[in-house]
C-alpha cells in the first residue's frame, strides 16, 4: 500500500471519528491543528486505524507518536511486518 493510499484511509478514519473534515492531514499535522483531536478521540482514532489496516500498534510506538507523519510511519512499519 502506498503512503498516499494509507493517508487517504487515515483521513477517512479521522473524519468518521471527529465527524467533520475541516482538516488537511500532512506529515507535520499534530493534534493542535485539528478540531476535536484530543485524548479521548485519539484513542478512538487509534482503534479505528487498527481495524481499518488490520494491525495492532505497540504502546512504545503510540507513546512517541506526535504527528500524522509519525502515525503514517508506524502504519507502514506494521504493514510491512504483516
Amino acid at each position: 500500500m502506498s503512503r498516499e493510499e494509507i493517508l487517504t484511509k487515515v483521513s477517512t478514519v479521522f473524519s468518521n471519528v471527529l465527524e467533520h473534515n475541516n482538516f488537511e492531514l500532512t506529515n507535520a499535522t499534530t493534534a493542535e491543528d485539528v478540531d476535536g483531536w484530543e485524548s479521548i478521540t485519539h484513542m478512538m482514532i487509534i482503534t479505528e486505524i487498527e481495524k481499518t489496516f488490520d494491525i495492532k500498534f505497540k504502546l512504545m510506538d503510540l507513546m512517541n507518536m506526535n504527528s500524522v507523519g509519525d502515525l503514517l510511519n508506524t502504519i507502514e512499519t506494521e504493514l510491512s511486518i504483516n
Partner: protein
Amino acid sequence: MRFIKDIQNSIRSNNSHNSLCINNIFYTYKDFENEIRKIRFAIVNTIESSERLIGLVTNDDIQTYASIIALWLEGKAYVPVNPETPLDRNYHIFELTKTKHVIDSSKESVYDDYEVINSGVLQDLHPSLSPKNFSGEHLAYILFTSGTTGVPKGVPITFNNVQALVDAINEEPEFNLNNTDRCLQMFELTFDFSVVTYLFPLLAGACMYTIPKGTIKYFYIFKLIKEKALTVLTMVPSIINYLRPYFPEINEESVRYCSFGGGALHSDIAKEWSECLPNCKIFNYYGPTEFTVYSGFYPYHKDTHTKTYNGIIAIGKPQKDTLYLVVNENNEEVPIGETGELCLGGPQITPGYWKNEEKNKQSFFIRNENGKDIRYYKTGDLCIKDNDSDFLYVGRADFQVKIRGYRVELSEIEFHAKSKSKKKVNMVALDINNKLGNAELGLAIESEPFDTSYIFEHMKTKMPNYMIPMHVRFIKDFPHSINGKIDRKELKKHFDIK
C-alpha cells in the same frame, strides 16, 4: 499553620533537588522558591490583606503552582479556574466568591474586569518564605463542582481541613514519600484530587511530573512512567481502562505506590494492572471534595487483599480522626452488613457549601455521640460495613433507582452483565424514563455491536426479571466529564425510547 511551615522547610532543605518537570523542563526547589517569593511580593504589594479569595488561572507552569504556595504563606485561598472552561462560567465563579484579584501567568489575560497579577513577568522578590500568622479557619481553597441545577456548587476548604488531611496521611505507615520520589501529577488544578498530587510531593521534597495540555494524556502518562521511571502514581480508574489493551507491554519496576480515587475501581482490571507494576503497593482511596480529598483507603493486593462487592474493590477503613457512619433515610445507623448512605465526620469536613444554605441543610447533620455533637456530611454513596469493619462500596445513592416499585442497584446489573461477557468492555446500566415517565432499564456497552444474548441469558439466572435491561445501545466511546468520570447524563441521550 504547621503544614505550611513544613512546605517552607521542605523547599529550603531540598533547594538543589527538582520540584517540577513540565514539558520535559526541570525546575529545582530553588527555582520554585524564587517564583513563590516573586508572587508573594506582588500579592503583598497589590492585594489588601482583607481580600482573601484570590482567583488563579490554572495554566500548566511553575508560576501557577508557586501561586498556590505564595497565597498560602499569606493566609489566602486560591479559587482556581481552568483556562479552557467557558469564560462565562469562570466569571460566574468569581462573582460567587466576590473575587477582585486574579493571578494569571497567561501572556495575555482575558480577565480584564479584575485586578490581574501577571505572574509570568514579575521581578522583585519577597524577602521571606516564612508563613504569616493567621487563623486555621481561613480558607485554603474553594473548588466548584457541577451542581444539579446547573449553578456551580462551591466547596470551601480551610487550612485546618488541609492540616487534618496531612496529619492523617503522615499517620499512615504504608505510605511515605521521600525526596527521591518522582510523582505523577495528572490532574487539572480545579479538580480536588490535584491537592494530594502537588501537596504531598512538595512536603516530601519530591519531584512532580505534569501532563502538558494538548498531549494525548493516556500515552503521555505511560511515557513518563517509562522514561522518567516514576515511582508514585495517583490516578482515576478511567486511565487504566484506556491503557488496558496494552497491559501485556507494560512492566514498570520503578513504581512503588499507585493510588486510585475518584471512581469505582473494579477488581478484574486492578489485578491485571498490579501485574504491570511488580513492585507496587496499590491503594484504593475514597473521599469526596467536601471532606478534603481523602477520607480513607483499602490496601489492595492481588493475592492477599481482594475484598470486593459486586466486583468493586472495597474502600476499607477511615483514616486517622475520621468517622464513617452508614445510615438509613432518617440518618440512623444501620446494622453491620446492611446497605445505607455513607456519612463522614471529623476535622476534614468542609464548613459547608459556599452560600447555599438549602443544600447545606440537605447534606449535613449533627449527631450526638457519647455526649459530643459530631457533624456529618452525607456523601450520597451507598456502602456496607462488614464484620472486619471494612467498608464496601455499593454505588451512588442516586444510582439506586426504582423500577416498577422495586429498588434496583445499577452497579449490580453492571456486575452481572460484565462478569459473563467474553469481551472485556465497559458497561453502564441506566434508568431511562419512558413516555409515561416510568423508569426502564438500559444497558450502554462501550463497543462495536456484538451478540449479547448469552449475557442476557446469564443475567436472567442471576437477577429478577425487573432487573434485566430492556434496551441495549452500543456506543463506541463513552462520554467522560473533565474529571474522567463517565458522563451518565450524556449516555442516557443515546436511549430514545417510546
